[in-house]
């Protein structure tokens, strides 16, 4: 390379070969796009396959072994019921834990231990949470198998670390000058948290929680582990109703013998699930954008 460099500056300074640079750049760009593009291709495929299957009767019927009569309603409603329950459980617990860690806890061993533990819990496989739900809620507390409560509690534990971590980030983003101003006015810690910290952190907390709910709505393995039923026909009518969920129903349908299920009904279910997920995530993004300007 050095040899390329001309000796007399009057002729310029020579050129350094950029082949590697260009090749590498293209390679890196290709790598960046590969996942996105392949996902897009698959989504396109599934969307095409869902055409003709994803219709009103699909969304309002109960499941059926005949692909032309099969419907998604109980799973759809089940997912939403579980999700609401999860939100009710994780929001207060997650915010409470985040407030403790950010506002109360000093930087001692206990705090660091809790923090490390939360980070670790966020990485525990969901199937293990399923076993936890099975042992704890179905077994020990005897809530019953495969019902709304057991499902919601199990998945709530699964997403709690994610909610806590994002709530902590939101609380940490509240400028310290705001807290100082409040303490300076003679506010107590709780008054400061309630009147200054939480209102300001709320959009961030909400965004994080909703995104975590998006994760919750796609969870399947924990439901399988707590013996959620293969198929449900009615709508959940109590906390103790057996419940199915969209991903679980999709998983079940994927095992049906007819190709109409493989390439039609399941595709319709996948598209429905993704649309619900996308809606949830866009709500989060709207909240984030709506409040982000004000800082």
């Amino acid at each position: 390379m050095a040899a390329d460099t001309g000796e007399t500056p009057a002729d310029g300074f020579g050129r350094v070969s950029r082949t590697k640079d260009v090749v590498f750049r293209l390679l890196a760009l290709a790598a960046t796009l590969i996942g996105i593009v392949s996902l897009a291709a698959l989504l396109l495929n599934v969307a095409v396959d869902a055409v003709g299957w994803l219709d009103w009767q699909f969304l309002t019927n109960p499941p059926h072994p005949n692909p032309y009569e099969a419907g998604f309603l109980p799973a759809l409603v089940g997912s939403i019921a579980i999700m609401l329950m999860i939100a009710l459980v994780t929001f207060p617990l997650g915010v409470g834990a985040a407030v403790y860690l950010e506002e109360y806890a000093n930087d001692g061993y206990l705090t660091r231990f809790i923090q490390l533990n939360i980070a670790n819990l966020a990485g525990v496989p969901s199937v293990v949470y399923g076993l936890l739900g099975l042992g704890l809620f179905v077994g020990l507390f005897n809530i019953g198998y495969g019902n709304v409560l057991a499902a919601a509690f199990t998945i709530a534990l699964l997403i709690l670390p994610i909610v806590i971590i994002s709530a902590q980030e939101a609380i940490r983003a509240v400028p310290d000058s705001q807290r100082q101003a409040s303490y300076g006015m003679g506010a107590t810690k709780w008054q400061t948290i309630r009147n200054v910290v939480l209102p300001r952190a709320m959009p961030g907390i909400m965004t994080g929680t909703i995104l975590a709910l998006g994760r919750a709505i796609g969870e399947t393995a924990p439901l399988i582990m707590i013996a959620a039923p293969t198929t449900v026909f009615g709508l959940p009518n109590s906390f103790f109703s057996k419940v199915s969920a969209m991903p679980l129903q999709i998983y079940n349908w994927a095992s049906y013998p007819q190709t109409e299920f493989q390439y039609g009904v399941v595709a319709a279910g996948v598209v429905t699930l993704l649309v619900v997920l996308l809606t949830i995530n866009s709500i989060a993004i709207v909240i984030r954008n709506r409040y982000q300007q004000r800082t």
Partner: protein
Amino acid sequence: MTSSETEPTDDQTAPTPGTDGLADTADSGGETTFDRTLLEARDLSVYYGEERALADVDIEIPEKQVTAVIGPSGCGKSTFLRCINRMNDLVDSARVEGELCFDGKNVYDDDVDPVALRRKIGMVFQSPNPFPKSIRDNVAYGLKVQGKQENVDEKVHTALERAALLDEVEDQLDSSGLDLSGGQQQRLCIARAIAPDPDVILMDEPASALDPVATSKIEDLIEDLAEEYTVVIVTHNMQQAARISDKTAVFLTGGELVEFDDTDKIFENPEHDRVEDYITGKFG
């Protein structure tokens, strides 16, 4: 330190700052005039971990006057100010030794609730920090947290008026405090600080983030406030200290209070060479 032994006199008139004060103070030499002492530090030291940020400070701050605290960066001005309302409690590593008395009561006594203490002391910070709430809610915040729920609207108006902001915001009390200009925001913070009617107002470089026009409004306001409140103001701007304060405390590096006296005296004829060097810009 030089002047802290002198007893308060009955002379209620604060020496007027400016050049006319020069002759007085120059004549009176070490002798200074004092009002009733409201805040008094005795052997006050503050440590952050191992590092000493304030070293054996003795000072008597008179009631209903403006006391300026000046000194080079890092000399402990803010630390001193934050001792008064125990905001240093919020810093884990901070440790206070010695006494700081508010009206004769040591605020570091065990039976003192810092929250109750802070309700008697308003505080205004370096850069304006209004809450992302309406102007009204900003000013009413102290009243709310302190449980003073009667006549809130009236008190909000009075506070805004005293802070010389009412005219400018009267018909937008419900719009956000963040929509105001920097100078207005800082006056809003002052209104917020005085709304619960404290005894003392602490200001930590309240105009350092502001442009000259806004600064001069704040300076006028501070002089007015001294009619009713005891004001302690930290500033890095010596001209500002000279313009608005009655008393000036000069801290130098190491957290040492080198000289405390009438402002005119400090600026025209300081006792210590180091203070003179600092004021004339030879050092710091």
